[in-house]
Each structure stands twice: as structure tokens, then as C-alpha cells.
């Protein structure tokens, strides 16, 4: 079982596939939940206070815009906790946390320079592309400790073993 960072950090498909293989996706939503459930909501709606962009200094210098540092204070801890990472190139990005290209560039760079297994795939626009992406991700997840061939683990999550790759 490995904690896998994903980029985009709020991707439905990536989080879903990682869970299917019994690993833990490091999703943005958990970070946000922690923030917004703070009993002292000083700065609605996200409860990002003046302190957060300052905490973001751990990842980017003071000359970097406050919005980048504020976002990094949420995304950064996910990168710190990552034991593996999947980065999707050309993925659709939502707005908000992942709406700033500079933050995304910095986050992806931080994941790449970390000494962990990293898979980079291309976001598909057709069926074959999707197959390629799914195959690459599944193979990568199998190769991680606690993943791969652990059909029992898979069955626990999925309900039935992930279809055999015999059909390749």
C-alpha cells in the first residue's frame, strides 16, 4: 500500500483507479476538508488566512504571488507525503485550487524532483488513448509495493478481481 500523489490533485479518474488497486490517493479534497472543518473559520469560504501564503514560503519564495503560495500551502503537504506519483499531461483543470498554471508547474516540478516512482501519462481524447492511459496507470500501480497481482486486495475494494490482463 502506497500513498500516491496525483496531478491534477482532484482528478476523479486517478483517485478512483488508485483506490481500485488498494493504494491511497493523496487527493486535494482531504486537505480542503481539514481546512474548512477547522472550528475557527476566520476566513471563509476556504479558510485560507494570511498565514497560509506565509506557510507556502516553504515551497516558493516571497517574490512569488500570494495566490501561488496560498495554493501551495494546500497542495504542498500532499507532495511531502507522496510515496509515488502519477502526473497527467494535458489534463483538464478545474478552477480554484488547480486554476493557477504557475502553481501547477511548481507542484509537478516538486513531484518530479522527489526521489519517488513517477508515472507521466497523456490525457486521452479517444478510446485508444484512454486504454493506453488506463493500462499505463494500472501497470504502474501494480509495480508499486503492495500493488500488482494482489487480487485479494483488489477484490476487497472492487468486489471482484480486476479483469485478468490475459486479453492483451
Amino acid at each position, binding site marked *: 500500500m502506497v500513498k500516491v500523489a496525483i496531478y491534477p490533485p482532484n482528478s*476523479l479518474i486517478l483517485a478512483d483507479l488508485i483506490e481500485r488497486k488498494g493504494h491511497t490517493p493523496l487527493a486535494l479534497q482531504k*486537505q480542503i*476538508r481539514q481546512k474548512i*472543518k477547522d472550528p475557527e473559520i476566520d476566513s471563509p469560504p476556504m479558510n485560507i488566512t494570511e498565514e497560509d501564503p506565509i506557510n507556502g514560503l516553504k515551497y516558493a519564495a516571497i517574490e512569488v504571488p500570494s495566490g501561488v503560495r496560498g495554493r501551495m500551502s494546500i497542495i504542498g503537504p500532499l507532495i511531502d507525503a507522496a510515496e509515488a506519483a502519477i502526473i497527467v499531461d494535458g489534463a483538464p483543470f478545474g*478552477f480554484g485550487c488547480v486554476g493557477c498554471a504557475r502553481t501547477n508547474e511548481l507542484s509537478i516540478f516538486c513531484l518530479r524532483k522527489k526521489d519517488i516512482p513517477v508515472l507521466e501519462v497523456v490525457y*486521452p481524447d479517444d478510446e485508444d488513448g484512454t*486504454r493506453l492511459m488506463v493500462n499505463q496507470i494500472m501497470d504502474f500501480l501494480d509495480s508499486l509495493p503492495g500493488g500488482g497481482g494482489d487480487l485479494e486486495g483488489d477484490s476487497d475494494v472492487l468486489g471482484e478481481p*480486476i479483469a485478468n490482463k490475459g486479453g492483451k
Partner: protein
Amino acid sequence: MPANLCITPDLGKEDMDPEVSTRMIILSSKANVSESEVVNFLHMLNLPITIKWTCYGAMISGKDEYVREAIRELRKLDPYGIFTKERGFAPGDPRRCRGHRYGPREGFHQMEKEFKILDYVGEALKNPREVEIEKKEPVSVDYFKEILEEEENKKEDDK
């Protein structure tokens, strides 16, 4: 309608509990189950969770262990048509509810886009097969020149 965007929410006990998590359940368009079947199934599980029917599937909220159990059971219903991810805000949180805060939700459009390939993802999981995609290289300068000259000649001929 209150238009104060950064409304300070009056959260209930459960909403403030860090052990309470929220999950979005999204059905691919080729899913073998409907939104109502999903919601009924979740109710039949008789777990202490809040279940909400939504346009994309459902949203459940409750103690993390029960939410996980519900997801585990639910996936069995249609392993290749049901997808799920966490959500930061609780269902109906005024800070993210369209009713209170105009404009699109931050992550909604990304989900809308990812939804478009969910069928393919389900199919790829169900019947995996190797694929190869040829990566196109940019044309060489020589080839570009060749085409350019060809087009020029064509124009000359037309005259």
C-alpha cells in the same frame, strides 16, 4: 437570496467532525445502474450515512469507516460503471452550494470533462487490451519546403 459569497457557515456537529467524510459517486453514461438504483442500494445497506441523490449519481456523507464500507459494497453493483472520489465540502455547505454562491463550482467543470471519458475507462478496465498509439513528429523543414514549392507550382499552373 444572500449574496454574501464568503458566508460563515453555521455548521452542525457532524459537519465539523474531521472523521466525517463526503464522497461523490459518479456514474458513467454506460453504467448498468441508474442514479435511483444507486440511492436505493445505499439506503438498503442500512449504514449510518447521509445519502443525497444528485444529477451525476449520488453523494454520501458520514463516518469514514461507514462511507468506505458503502463504497466497497456499491462498487460490486457495477464495477466498471461506478466511479467515486472524495469531496472536501459537506453536501449543501453554503460555501459551495450553487443556491448561495453564484457561478460555477471550482471543480465541477473538471469533473464534467473527466466524465466524458469514463465510459472508455470502464471499458478499458473490463476488457483490457494492449494498444499502441503512433506519436506524430513535426514535419521536417525539407518536407515543409517541398510542400511549399509544390503548392507554388500548382498556383503557377492555375494561372
